[in-house]
Structure formats: structure tokens, C-alpha cells
């Protein structure tokens, strides 16, 4: 709709651009609230962390390639695996998916922005600052070394006295703010900003997946915030929550941590399946099979994921009867994933598959996730888990799930959606080379780890003795990991290359069915001048030409057409049926989210260096930013 000036109203693209644009240069950079800029920023920042986490993995693999080697010291190795896990979970997988959701949700819903654009900017700044906070530990040579799940009492003040663990514990609390406010924003956006006619049973499956993910975040993240928050109270203020000989409980920490930690696996996995549910239908040229089944599976997973956390604790000596429950639930959660799996197969079954790079990543995902899912069933079996938990078998399992079944869809998503975001396509030739290198490298790197686990190799050891039968397999694993890294490098190169040299994408390079492909690539600042009207699950396949709404006179309809865009408004629709029932002003660019985020960062800095004055200053800055933010007047918004 951005392509032509609106004949009826006389509103031009130029008019709208003047209303919606950011200030040029640095002021615009720091004050933008545009979900597209923020989403891309999320993606780029996450990939910077991905790059670092990949390097830590390669150093670890170099160390483990031979027994008794001295590539790094034991304490360096321990910090490497701590930061690798922390980075991959908190600073890559979670935020990169948030980035895609940020960018895509409003476009797929036919909205002009997110429900709370300033909150959106705020959650990005928190993510960035918390990542910088955690990595600042390297600047003073004190990186965290307590493992990515930071079990007490090892991570308590007695056994980890330095500031290392404070970077980690405070950093986890810090980054949780970003995830939580992001989830709130997703939920409200999904329920209130859908285009007229996009009833809940017409939402794209990616939207369903983000909805499921956001609800899991809201209920799960408080648990990890409490776990690491109490740990920091112990460390900084001398409380005894996790000090066993003074009445604390070390298992309480584990329960709190995994009450978040297992849903977190699905928080990452579910949006990745949402991406797959968009890519497979497009390249099969068929609607997703079993739409209702798949949506129901996503919701079922969100519920069941809260009943499996104890399977991380099967070796802690809990009563067998209690563990049997969690064993059973951990088996049951396979079923909704199985439903999704066969929905994808059924979609492909009658279709003509176009083997684009994105589709290759989707098929690679299926083959890898199948194995990760099967080993997931195995570790749910209590006595088997006793044998393999905390061994390389489990390392293999969760890399098949969190690397294979999450990172592969993310790479597929780059090939699929980057043309929309940048206006330029990545090279398919390089893409296919990257896919095959990654796919082969991945399996060479991670499959032998199953066997290493069976041969008794425990997790998190910085070295091992010769003669245990592990030597050859470790060489193979290391070789595979370097191949995998090279494969990811090809895509990163391809991506950078495409920004300048890629072929122009056009609006809809893949012949896809959802609304993001109806606008230009990249979309204009306001996404849609007039809001599309949806009458199908596949508007771009079934509704040609795609109809757009016209503004009416009342509150409910006045923002539907370009007139709404001209006054910086966005239509609000009902939660289930998406009937227009209001108009919402969208805030203009502002520095306030950055001010609030900086204030909070200074509070955390004060806690870290144990300086009350710094903390108070940060709190004052945050309070000032927040007060100004909440001091709503119409002039703020228009």
C-alpha cells in the first residue's frame, strides 16, 4: 500500500514519511521506537553475541581435541563454557527470536507498529546493556565461571568469592527485565492490533508461536529472576537462602532455576517451530496441514512445559515416586511436538517442494530435531537418565535441540525474511553451500558426543586422560565443530554481502501467503498506509487483490485508512474476532526508554561495585525517566 499515493484522500507517501520518520543520524538512532529498526537491532546484536559464543566453543573444542592438552588453563576453560551457555541462551537464542518477532509481528498482523513502541525500545536497550554488563567481566579479567546454571553453593560467596559471579547473577536478573516486557508487548500486540478480519483462527502460525512463547516467558522468567536474585542477596547482603549449614536449601535454587529452565527450552523452540510453519507451506505451495492441531499443540506445549523441570534433577536423590511423575510428563510433552512434526510432513506430502536455502534449513531442522526429540524421550526415562545425565550424551542431546532445532530455523529465517527486512536477497548459491557445510559439520560435531557419553565422558571437564577410548571421537567432534563454524561463517558473509550487492527482493520474492509480503521490501516507516482487510488464513493467496480498509468517522474506524497513518494512529481491534473498536496514538521517537534503561544499568553497576551512591544515582535517573514517560499528555503522543 505504500507503493502509490492514495488517490481518494490525496495523502502521499511523502506526507506519511514526514510524520513517521526518525530524525537523521545519531539522534534518530538513540530515540527510535520503530519496531523494524528495533527488531533488526535485536537481530544484529544477537548475532554479535552468537559470533563470540561460537569462538568460545571453538577454543573449548581446541582444548578437548587431545587428552591432557594445555590450550587454555582450567579456570579459563570453566569460564568459557559458562559464558558459552549463558550467551547462547540469554544473549543469542532468546533475543534473536525476539528480534524476528519484533520485526514480523506488526507486519504479519497488518499493524503500523507494536502496541507499546517505547517499551519495545526499552526492552532492546535493556538487552544490549545487560549483555555489555555480563561481558564487561572480561574487561577486568574476572569472567563468571560457575556454569551457565550457576548451582549453589558453588556460586555462593564461600566458594566463589570474586566479583565474577556477580556479573553473572546480576546480569541474569537484568536481562530478565528485557525478556519480560518484550513478552507483555507481544501478547498485547497479538490480541489488540490484528487487521480487521484476522480472527484468531486466521493468525499466521508464527504469531501463534510467539503468543505461546510470550505466555511461557511471563510465568517462567520470574522463577529465574528469583533464583539469581536470592543468590545475589546471599552474595551481596549476607542472606542465607542457599547456605545449607545455616538452614538454606541448595536444591531450592535448582527447583527455581529449572522451573524457568525447562520452559525456556520451549521458549526458544516454539518460535523456531513457528518459523518452520511459515517456511514449509511457502515452499510447498500448500497451506499448513492441521492448522488447528498445530496451534493447539503450541498452547499445549506452553502448559506442559511447566511440569517437566525435575528431569534436570533426577540424580539429586529425590523420592522415586515424585520423579516418576516428572518422568511421565516429560514423555507426554513429546506428543504435541509429534503432532507438529506430522503436520509439516503432511504439508509437504502433496506439495511441490522448492528447495530454496530457507527450505533446506527447514528440512535439515526436521532431520536434526527428529533425533534430538528421540534422545529427549530417552532422557525422560528415569534410570537411563541416571546413567547419561551430565555426560556428553546430554551435551549431544541439547545441542541437537537448541542448536539444531533452534539455530537451523533461525538461519532459515534469515534467508526467508532478510530480503523483506533489507530489500535484498542473499545469494542462494552461497546459502546452499552454507547449509550443507553446517548440516554435515553439525552432525560430525554432535553425533559422536552421544557415544562419548556412553563411554563415560562427563560434561564440563577441561581435560581428560589418554587411553579411555575418547581420543579419536574427540578429534572428530572438534573437526566437525570447525566445519560447522565455517558453515555459519559463510552465511554471515553472505548476509553482509547481500546488504550491498544482493539482488533486489521485490515485495514478495517467495510467493508467500501472509501480510508482511504485501508491503514493500523494506517496508515503509508506517508499514501499511491503509490497513489490510483479512478474510482468509492466507490473504495473499486467497484475496487478490488484497483489499484495504477506508477510514470512517468514528473512533473505531477513523485510523483504518491513510488518514489514520497521517495522525500517527493505529487501529485497535477486538481480541478474538478482530473487529475494529478503537484507535491508538503511537508515540513519536523519544530518548526516555534509553534514559530509563541507563538508569537501571547504573543501579546494577552500583550493586556490582557495592557502591550505595552509584545505586542511588541510577535509581534517581531511572525514576526521572520513568516519571517523564508516564506523564502522559496528548502532546507527548502526537
Amino acid at each position: 500500500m505504500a507503493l502509490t499515493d492514495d488517490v481518494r484522500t490525496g495523502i502521499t507517501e511523502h506526507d506519511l514519511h514526514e510524520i513517521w520518520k526518525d530524525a537523521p543520524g545519531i539522534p534518530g538512532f538513540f530515540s527510535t521506537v520503530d519496531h523494524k529498526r528495533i527488531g533488526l537491532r535485536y537481530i544484529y546484536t544477537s548475532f554479535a553475541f552468537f559470533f563470540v559464543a561460537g569462538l568460545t566453543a571453538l577454543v573449548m573444542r581446541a582444548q578437548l581435541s587431545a587428552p591432557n592438552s594445555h590450550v587454555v588453563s582450567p579456570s579459563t576453560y570453566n569460564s568459557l563454557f559458562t559464558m558459552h551457555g549463558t550467551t547462547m541462551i540469554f544473549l543469542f537464542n532468546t533475543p534473536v527470536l525476539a528480534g524476528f518477532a519484533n520485526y514480523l509481528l506488526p507486519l504479519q498482523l497488518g499493524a503500523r507498529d507494536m502496541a507499546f513502541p517505547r517499551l519495545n525500545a526499552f526492552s532492546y536497550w535493556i538487552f544490549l546493556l545487560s549483555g555489555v554488563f555480563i561481558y564487561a567481566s572480561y574487561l577486568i579479567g574476572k569472567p563468571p565461571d560457575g556454569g551457565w546454571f550457576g548451582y549453589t553453593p558453588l556460586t555462593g560467596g564461600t566458594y566463589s568469592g570474586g566479583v565474577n559471579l556477580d556479573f553473572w547473577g546480576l546480569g541474569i536478573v537484568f536481562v530478565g527485565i528485557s525478556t519480560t516486557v518484550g513478552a507483555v508487548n507481544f501478547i498485547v500486540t497479538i490480541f489488540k492490533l490484528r487487521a480487521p478480519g484476522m480472527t484468531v483462527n486466521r493468525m499466521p502460525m508464527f504469531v501463534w508461536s510467539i503468543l505461546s512463547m510470550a505466555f511461557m516467558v511471563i510465568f517462567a522468567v520470574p522463577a529465574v529472576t528469583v533464583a539469581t536474585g536470592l543468590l545475589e542477596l546471599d552474595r551481596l547482603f549476607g542472606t542465607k537462602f542457599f547456605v545449607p549449614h545455616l538452614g538454606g536449601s541448595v536444591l531450592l535454587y535448582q527447583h527455581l532455576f529449572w522451573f524457568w529452565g525447562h520452559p525456556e527450552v520451549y521458549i526458544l523452540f516454539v518460535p523456531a517451530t513457528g518459523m518452520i510453519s511459515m517456511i514449509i507451506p511457502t515452499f510447498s505451495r500448500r497451506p499448513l496441514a492441521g492448522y488447528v492441531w498445530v496451534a493447539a499443540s503450541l498452547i499445549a506445549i506452553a502448559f506442559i512445559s511447566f511440569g517437566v523441570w525435575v528431569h534436570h534433577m533426577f540424580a539429586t536423590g529425590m523420592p522415586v515416586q515424585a520423579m516418576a511423575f516428572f518422568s511421565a510428563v516429560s514423555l507426554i510433552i513429546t506428543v504435541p511436538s509429534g503432532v507438529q512434526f506430522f503436520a509439516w510432513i503432511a504439508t509437504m506430502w502433496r506439495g511441490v517442494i522448492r528447495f530454496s536455502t530457507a527450505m533446506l534449513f527447514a528440512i535439515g531442522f526436521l532431520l536434526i530435531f527428529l533425533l534430538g526429540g528421540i534422545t529427549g524421550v530417552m532422557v525422560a526415562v528415569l534410570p537411563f537418565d541416571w546413567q547419561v545425565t551430565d555426560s556428553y550424551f546430554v551435551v549431544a542431546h541439547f545441542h541437537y535441540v537448541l542448536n539444531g532445532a533452534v539455530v537451523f530455523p533461525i538461519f532459515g529465517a534469515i534467508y526467508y525474511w532478510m530480503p523483506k527486512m533489507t530489500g535484498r536477497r542473499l545469494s542462494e548459491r552461497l546459502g546452499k553451500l552454507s547449509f550443507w557445510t553446517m548440516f554435515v559439520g553439525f552432525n560430525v560435531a554432535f553425533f559422536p558426543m552421544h557415544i562419548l557419553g556412553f563411554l563415560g565422558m562427563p560434561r564440563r571437564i577441561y581435560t581428560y586422560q589418554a587411553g579411555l577410548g575418547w581420543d579419536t571421537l574427540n578429534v572428530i567432534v572438534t573437526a566437525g565443530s570447525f566445519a560447522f563454524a565455517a558453515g555459519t561463517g559463510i552465511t554471515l558473509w553472505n548476509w553482509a554481502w547481500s546488504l550491498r550487492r544482493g539482488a533486489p527482493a521485490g515485495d514478495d520474492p517467495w510467493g508467500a501467503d501472509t501480510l508482511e509480503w504485501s508491503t514493500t521490501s523494506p517496508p515503509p516507516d508506517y508499514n501499511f498506509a491503509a490497513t489490510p482487510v483479512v478474510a482468509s488464513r492466507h490473504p495473499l493467496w486467497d484475496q487478490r487483490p488484497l483489499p484495504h480498509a477506508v477510514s470512517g468517522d468514528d473512533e473505531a474506524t477513523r485510523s483504518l485508512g491513510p488518514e489514520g497513518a497521517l495522525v500517527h494512529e493505529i487501529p485497535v481491534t477486538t481480541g478474538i474476532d478482530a473487529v475494529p473498536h478503537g484507535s491508538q496514538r503511537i508515540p513519536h521517537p523519544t530518548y526516555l526508554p534509553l534514559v530509563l534503561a541507563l538508569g537501571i544499568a547504573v543501579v546494577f553497576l552500583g550493586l556490582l561495585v557495592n557502591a550505595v551512591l552509584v545505586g542511588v544515582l541510577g535509581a534517581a535517573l531511572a525514576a526521572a525517566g520513568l516519571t517523564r514517560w508516564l506523564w502522559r499528555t496528548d502532546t507527548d503522543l502526537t
Partner: protein
Amino acid sequence: MFDARGSEAHRVAGLWWLMFALAAGVYAVVGGFILVAALRGRGTPEGRASRITENAFIWLGGLLVPTAILMVLAVVTVQTTSHLRRPERDPLRIEVVGKRWWWQVRYPAQRFTTANEVHVPVGRPVEIGIDSDNVIHSFWVPQLGGKVDTIPGQHNVWRFRATRAGTYLGECAEYCGVQHANMRFLVVAEPAAAFDRWVARHLTPHSAPTSDLTEKGQLVFLRETCAGCHTVAGTTAQGDEGPDLTDFGSRLAIGADTVPNDPGNLAGWIADPQSIKPGILMPPTALAPGELHALVAYLESLR
């Protein structure tokens, strides 16, 4: 795990081969479906028709077949679990405490303590009490069975039988700090007679020096900081920070199975343990060559 030598490991290995057969079948069938689904429409303009409806895929592949397989696994899980770790009559009781980064091993009924080496008689039920007074570790002997965490403030028990004689590698399986990797131990399963001899030797420790050299070594041991952390039964050395050394000379390895126990390794260990196992709590001990030689001889004589 493929080379099971204990009651629990045997059962789990059986369970594994059942699961492996199911998994291989599932992977072959589902993987086959993926590849066929991806390829069968090739060369056709609109895809190939099929008698299998979309709902059939979801009902059969997604719901019914997985549920059936999971039911089988649930039954097997409950059956296997209920057979394992059950109390048996007249077990041999052993108390193991995870330390940073070694294992204290006590035989409470026999009233002696050793370290990093657990001797058990083949065939007799064994009940190992597992504790920690510091961080969390996990006690794991892959060839004998699964893991049990050492949780400070909680007493855990692991019950098993060794089915064949041999020396099995044990490892710490829960990350516990800088030397987690070198927190190993050995389980020596031996025939009852040999085990009884081993126990008998511990009931009458031979800590008295038998030569001039070992006598000098004992003097060095008691004079230096050694006795502050280590115990040698029958002497004034009663420290409990480090491993009990009463039977040190009979042990197979030094430093929780970090290096084999021989005089050369021991001398290096005493002089500079940090170069062999960086980050551990034992400080270096500077001794004249003659004194070191005597101390090594004394320690190797303790049996």
C-alpha cells in the same frame, strides 16, 4: 555403559538396547517420510495426489503411534526403576563424602577411612551413603550404574552390586569448581576373600617406620605442614582437610586419580601439586632433596 559390570548398569544397558531399537525404527520411518514428502512431488506441476489424508498423518504419526511407544516406555521405566536401588539385606555400608576435589571413603562398620579408592566385594549388595560438606558433586561409576549427587545437607544413598571383578573408573559428574575434571576415583571390585584381606590390613595399619629412611620420612611428615591436613592412623597426624593417608602406599593413584602412584610422581606432587592439578587446596612443600626422598619412601611404605 556398553561394558556393564554392575547390577544397575546391566539393567540400564538392557533398557538402552530396547530404546535404541525403537529409536532406530522411528528414525528410519519418520526420516523416510520426510525425504519422500520432500521429493515425491518433484517434476509434477501441482504435486502428487495421495490416499493418506492430512488428518491421517496427524492422528497416526502425531498422536496414536507416539502415544503407544510412550506407553511402552512408561511401563518399562516404572518396572526398571522399581527394581533398582531397593534396600537389600545385609549390605556392605560405605560412606563417601565429596570433597574439593577428591573423595573421602569411610567403612563405618570396619571403622577405617581411606580416599579416592572404593573396594567392594563382587556379588554382595553395597549401599553407599553419599554426602558433601562443601559444594555439589556427583558420584558416578559408568560401568556400575548411574549418578547420585552429593548434596550438602542431604544424605543420598546408592545401592548396587558389582557383578565382575575389576577396577572401574569413577568420576565427578557435577561441575564443582576448578578441578572438576580431575576429581576421579577408582572402584576395585574383588572376590570376597581378597576384599576381606584388604579390610583386615586396614584394621591393623602399619604406620610405624621400618627403616632409617622411612623413620626420617615420618619426621619430615610430622614436622612439615603435612600433618595439619592429613591423617596417618597411629601417629599424631590427624588433620582432616586432605585425604587420609594411612594406606597411601597401597593406592593406585595420586590426587584423585590424576597421576599413577609411583615415587617419581609422588615427589613431583609434594614439591608442586599446583603444576599437576592447578587450583587445588594443597600448597607446595619446599624440601631438601634428601628429605623429599625420605618422605616419599615413608608415604609409599604406608599400607
